[in-house]
């Protein structure tokens, strides 16, 4: 992957960015080779937060292992849980009640908005603007409050279980979500005024970190990183799960392929999530919130794979079962890992400041990369 020979020459400056560095948002370690301010090579070193989640899951039952996955991409823990629950359900071949399906999608989309909010603030902070972070947290707080009321947790919800959701939604849920929608629509223009329309911001983003559609595909980029280059990769559209095929929403595509395109994809995706929530919030069907499942789950012998669209891209869950109560092998295909691998390719030849901005637009969550 790296051209080890001949890239680092005498006189080049080699800098270790991380594992403790304000720009990496976690324990990512980048070894960058500089010529003055210009980047010659970026080499990510991983493993600082490796907890061997996949191995841990092999000794946990099919109900238990879902909770561990909340700690992978902790900003979209609902969606991680959702992917695992879907995979187990595929093996069990249970029918999910419509109410549970709708609740799951509502939670997923709220999570997606919350995750993009945090990304927006952190990305502006990477560029040196501190204020957007607090503006983003204002809206994110309301989502966290909604989550806290229904799920009992604000970050690692563990709300999805095989067969549905753990408990019914809180009586206040619908009202608070509607309040949030009103508040969000009132404030959304501030985002454009403060950041998107800023001339400095646009100069920092446009034409920077170009990723061609071919490279996006060959590096395995998914999510907003790929859609910024015009590669259609929204799992909700391509391989719909739950009732996504019955909902009206657009797959957001930008064709420029630069940092600004990836930025705009996420900004517009938040609007689409709002659209989905608006369609569902008044139409939550009555009924059970959980299908009847056995106390001890046993998957039949075989291999099961499901994929969902998290806030960062495609999350795949691959379970190999020998017919016992615990999985024989579990493999997660995390979006962050493939998106990080493209960093060296797009960063070469640009300045240090741009590297930070590109890392921002790839929206890296380190525990998701290391697992």
């Amino acid at each position, binding site marked *: 992957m790296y051209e080890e020979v001949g890239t680092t020459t005498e006189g080049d*400056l080699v*800098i270790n960015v991380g594992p403790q*560095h*304000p*720009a990496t948002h976690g324990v990512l370690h980048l070894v960058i080779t500089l010529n003055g*301010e210009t980047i010659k090579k970026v080499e990510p070193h991983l493993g600082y937060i490796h907890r061997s989640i996949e191995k841990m899951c092999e000794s946990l039952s099919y109900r238990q292992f879902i909770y561990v996955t909340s700690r992978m991409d902790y900003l979209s823990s609902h969606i991680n849980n959702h992917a695992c629950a879907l995979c187990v359900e595929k093996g069990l071949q249970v029918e999910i009640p419509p109410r549970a399906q709708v609740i799951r999608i509502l939670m997923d989309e709220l999570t997606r908005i919350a995750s993009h909010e945090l990304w927006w603030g952190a990305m*502006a*902070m*990477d*560029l*040196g*603007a*501190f*204020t957007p*972070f*607090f*503006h983003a947290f*204002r809206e994110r707080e309301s989502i966290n409050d909604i989550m806290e009321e229904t799920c009992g947790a604000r970050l690692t919800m563990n709300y999805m279980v095989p067969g549905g959701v753990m408990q019914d939604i809180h009586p206040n849920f619908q009202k608070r979500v509607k309040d949030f929608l009103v508040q969000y629509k009132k404030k959304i223009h501030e985002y454009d005024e*403060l*950041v998107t329309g*800023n001339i*400095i*911001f646009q*100069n*920092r983003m446009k034409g920077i970190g170009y990723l061609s559609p071919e490279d996006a595909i060959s590096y395995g980029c998914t999510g907003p990183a790929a859609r910024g280059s015009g590669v259609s990769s929204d799992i909700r559209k391509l391989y719909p799960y739950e009732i996504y095929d019955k909902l009206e929403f657009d797959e957001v595509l930008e064709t420029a392929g630069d940092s600004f395109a990836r930025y705009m994809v996420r900004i517009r995706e938040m609007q689409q999530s709002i659209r989905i929530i608006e369609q569902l919030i008044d139409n939550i069907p009555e009924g059970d919130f959980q299908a009847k499942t056995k106390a001890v789950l046993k998957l039949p012998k075989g291999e099961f794979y499901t994929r969902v669209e998290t806030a960062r891209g495609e999350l795949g869950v691959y379970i190999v079962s020998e017919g016992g109560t615990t999985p024989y092998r579990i493999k997660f295909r995390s979006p962050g890992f493939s998106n990080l691998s493209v960093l060296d390719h797009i960063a070469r030849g640009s*300045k*240090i*400041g*741009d590297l*930070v901005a590109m890392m921002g637009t790839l929206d890296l969550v380190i525990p998701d990369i290391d697992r």
Partner: protein
Amino acid sequence: MWSFRHIANEIHAWLSANFNPTLTLIIEMVLAGVAVIGLFAALGLVLVLMERRVAAWIQIRLGPNRVGPKGLLQSLADTLKLIVKEGLTPDGADKLMFNVAPFIAMIVAMLLMAPIAFAKDFQLWDLNIGVLFVSAVSSLMVISILMAGWSSNNKYSLLGAMRSGAQIVSYELSAGLSILTIVVFTGSLQVSDIIHAQADGWWIFKGHLPVWIAFVIFIIAVTAETNRAPFDLAEAESELTAGFHTEYSGMKFALFFLAEYINVFIVCAIGATLFLGGWMPFHIGNWEGFNRVMDYIPSSIWFFGKTFFLIFVIMWFRWTFPRLRIDQLLNLEWKYLLPISMINLLVATAMAILGWHF
């Protein structure tokens, strides 16, 4: 009217009566030095607190509000913490340069206090090249930053220092040229002359377009010169952790921190003096009554009011804009600000010769 000049005269008379002239001069110099250090410390505390409260206000949060009444003692607590903290010197550092650099930053900031007129007749040193003195001394700041960055033996520090060197040297030109605009109109480099020339109206009101352009360029250039966001590339937290002062801790870091805030105060004071009339009250033509009322407001309030307004504007920049990239920063200066300020200076000179200003 009562002014600071009276106190100074009283002290001078008392000292002259009791000591011989040489001793009197020495005591007066010591008193002035103590006054500057006192003002220095007080300004540092006030500005740090102000920055945090302004930031909090812009960011819809409360800011420091626990230490003392309404958080007013927060800066004192922070200072205490920094004083008792260990001042580390890295192993591979150039010890002498590493330890001297913060003091150079401090000395530069203190020297710049000398020609500033804080109120009517209250100025430490009204030398006849006051404005030139300010531009000359303020460029020494870059030496302390380069020393700090080079001697730390840290790559981040080095990068930060190099950026800062390029930045300060470039933006000095624009700042100098916009100061020259006012010097051309006034015909003097002396601070007191410049202020007295604005008795019938501040330059920002009677200088027409050239002075407005010069004012805007001045504010941009001094924001860059003091390494404040959106031009804070020398520190660039998200890129270079803390830039040139990455390795500094304790009081040595505090000196850099303090020098930054004092520099902000000084450039704003210079801006207020040149463009907004310094301590000169706001006067409108022949409105005798109005002008008398304005005169009753003490001159120090006028000066500090204008200065703190400019400081607020610079803080507002910091908490609103993202940071520029190094090549964009230099492009802005060399391709836009410098040519504009040169043409602006030519226009201003023509106007001054033809007498087109009020």
